């Protein structure tokens, strides 16, 4: 009996300790938040289609981009791959029956929901106008918006993250199936593990910082207030100490997903497995050393800025190693452009563009001109949307058969992937140009000479929105009674999660599996889809 059939009451879902069900609870919640954040983005792009501030007031606009940032970062991106795909797959990939602390996992979800509801409540009350970065002294002393309520929601959500990270760390250390050494683990597990270390070490600093801002707002405990001897920049040090590693929380799991999809659809073992694993650790470590590159023009000393600039260049090295290795994996592979592969390839390309523009911003002298312009906005959207969201979608498409036991319509999925890729570039590439020309971010009006590029960007957003809505339909359609059943391993992938039925039974495996001889044991010469005996069609049974 699959995990989906084991208990059909609401109670069995809301009190579950099954990591697979908790993953689905997260998936539904983050999808809801994604569309709320997307609605804010829609209003932003509608406003920016014309130079005049005619759709919303400046104050409403400030609240819109803040809501967009807060929801997309904390309620969508941070939990997306770890809490959905990580929760579902980690125990399966390591041959375990569940995470180390299943009840803590459920608590994580409830904390996430509580934090999310508090943030939504603050939106209904009128929202926050400080930007998702909550810079002091505006957030502590001058903003007339619901800062304390929003930050309380962020605080609660932060604890959800910390507990999830704790769970994954202990699980990967202690519950690997006998014989599964670290270098037999899929790179997705490495990526989630490194992400979990960042979650555990960085998020607490955000937590204490939100408490200090709330204390200053409510009781004038002014640690960031110069009138008492405090320093507003101290807030930025503490905030970015978390928020820079946070972007690696968002991108490392995406890299893990890409490392699972690309070898499978190129039928080739990943190039440089050990370097890929070390690069993941390198990104996680160096990522803690670079936060000051968000503060080049804020009053930080020039000496410190130079140090952070140099360190920021260094973090590009492990990232580029990964890009080279994904590319090398394709070389002489037997490549299939199924939907997951389209998303993974899109991820690699767009992440590369985003990463290169990150180097531009890491250069101190260039950043002085480009900071707080649309260049920055475009850079981080290339990474977070072109990178993380595409990889999340790729992962959803790759593991949908395993999670639901159903196969979606691949043609529609490919159409959606292409629409997302094209829409994304149309939306965000013009923003690089706008940034170089000097258009500042977080303004609801702009000089008329910027209109053409803004209009292109807003048009792209329409295409992007269609691309994001399509999966709702074909995924839902795949679940209909009589929909196409997927076998245990429709993509002939390696990995222990594919050795168990789709969807898996409640305890994951009938018998605990033996680890594979070789992780990523693919061979392009033995591509099952080129097997003449099967007429070139996808086999329903796993090929060994």
């Amino acid at each position: 009996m699959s995990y989906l059939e084991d208990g059909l009451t609401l109670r069995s879902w809301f009190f579950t300790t099954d990591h697979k069900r908790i993953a689905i609870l997260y998936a539904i919640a983050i999808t809801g938040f994604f569309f709320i954040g997307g609605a804010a983005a829609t209003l932003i792009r509608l406003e920016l289609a014309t130079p005049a501030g005619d759709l919303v007031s400046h104050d409403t606009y400030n609240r819109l981009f803040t809501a967009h940032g807060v929801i997309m970062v904390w309620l969508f991106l941070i939990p997306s791959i770890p809490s959905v795909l990580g929760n579902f797959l980690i125990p399966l990939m390591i041959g375990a029956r569940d995470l180390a602390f299943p009840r803590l996992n459920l608590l994580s979800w409830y904390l996430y929901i509580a934090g999310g509801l508090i943030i939504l409540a603050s939106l209904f009350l009128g929202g926050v106008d400080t930007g998702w970065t909550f810079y002091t002294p505006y957030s502590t002393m001058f903003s007339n918006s619901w800062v304390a309520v929003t930050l309380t929601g962020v605080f609660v959500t932060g604890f959800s993250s910390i507990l999830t990270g704790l769970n994954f760390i202990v699980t990967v250390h202690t519950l690997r199936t006998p014989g599964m050494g670290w270098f037999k683990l899929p790179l997705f597990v490495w990526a989630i593990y490194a992400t979990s270390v960042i979650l555990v070490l960085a998020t607490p600093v955000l937590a204490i910082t939100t408490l200090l801002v709330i204390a200053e707002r409510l009781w004038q405990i002014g640690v960031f207030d110069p009138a008492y001897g405090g320093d507003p920049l101290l807030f930025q040090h503490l905030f970015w100490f978390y928020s820079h590693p946070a972007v690696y929380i968002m991108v490392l799991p995406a890299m893990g997903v890409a490392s699972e999809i690309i070898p499978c659809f190129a039928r080739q073992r990943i190039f440089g497995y050990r370097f890929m694993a070390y690069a993941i650790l390198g990104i996680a470590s160096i990522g803690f050393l670079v936060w000051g590159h968000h503060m080049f023009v804020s009053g930080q000393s020039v000496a410190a800025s130079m140090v952070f600039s140099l360190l920021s260049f260094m973090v590009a090295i492990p990232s580029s190693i990964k890009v080279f290795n994904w590319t090398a994996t394709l070389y002489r592979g037997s490549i299939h452009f199924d939907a997951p592969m389209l998303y993974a390839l899109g991820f690699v390309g767009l992440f590369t563009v985003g990463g290169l523009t990150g180097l531009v911003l890491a250069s101190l002298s260039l950043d002085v001109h480009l900071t707080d312009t649309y260049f920055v906005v475009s850079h981080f959207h290339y990474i977070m949307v072109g990178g993380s969201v595409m990889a999340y979608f790729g992962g959803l498409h790759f593991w949908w058969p395993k999670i639901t036991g159903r196969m979606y319509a691949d043609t529609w999925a490919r159409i959606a992937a292409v629409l997302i890729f094209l829409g994304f570039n149309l939306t965000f590439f013009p923003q690089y140009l706008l940034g170089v020309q000097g258009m500042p971010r977080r303004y609801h009006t702009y000089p008329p000479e910027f209109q053409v590029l803004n209009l292109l960007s807003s048009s792209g957003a329409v295409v992007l929105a269609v691309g994001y809505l399509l999966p709702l339909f074909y995924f839902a359609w795949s679940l209909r009674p009589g929909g196409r059943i997927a076998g245990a391993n429709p993509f002939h992938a390696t990995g222990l999660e594919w050795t168990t039925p789709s969807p898996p039974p409640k305890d994951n495996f009938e018998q605990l599996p033996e680890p594979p001889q070789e992780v990523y044991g693919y061979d392009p010469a033995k591509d099952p889809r080129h097997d003449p005996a099967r007429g070139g069609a996808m086999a329903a049974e796993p090929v060994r």
Partner: protein
Amino acid sequence: MNANAAAREHPHYAGGREPPREIGQLGMWVFIASEILFFGGLFVAYVYGRSHWPNGFAQASRHTDVVLGTLNTGVLLTSSAVIALAVACAESPAFRRWTARLLWLTAALGVIFIVVKGMEYRKEWHEHLFPGPGFELDAGGAQLFFMLYFVMTALHALHLAIGIVGVSLFAWATGQAKSWAPPRRIDIMALYWHFVDVVWIFLYPLLYLVERHS
């Protein structure tokens, strides 16, 4: 016990058997690492404040009650030793019957700490040392010191209160021989208690002993 053998014994493997110490202990240490960073933000703010306002911090620190502070430090250090002994008793068949009493003593010492802290806060309130208009001291940074003092000690006291509740629950459960309070869980609770003690070990010199010699 190596990780693979430990894995085989997890309840989600074989159904019903207790997970080995390794899993819970590792989990608590990971949590402690996160708490180091949680308190750590406040310690960074302190480092900033003291390095920029040495005179203000010195003057303000002299207005903390060093007698009560030292007493409290002694109380907490003792409570740590007591709970460490309790854990040893829980793991020793000959002395197991002392575990519950030692746990209750630990909790009692924690309560004493909270009461003394409350007395200090009351004193500081009457001496106009709470931040806000009417703050007593005039040196630059003195008010910042007391802002950090109250936030750090209050956060510590909150963690201690959670510890007192947890240790009391285990004391009661051990007395009732409840199955959910085996020695390895008492060990994990004790790790948390020791961590709260370590935070105070650092708060003591930083808050009470900045400069006492003038």
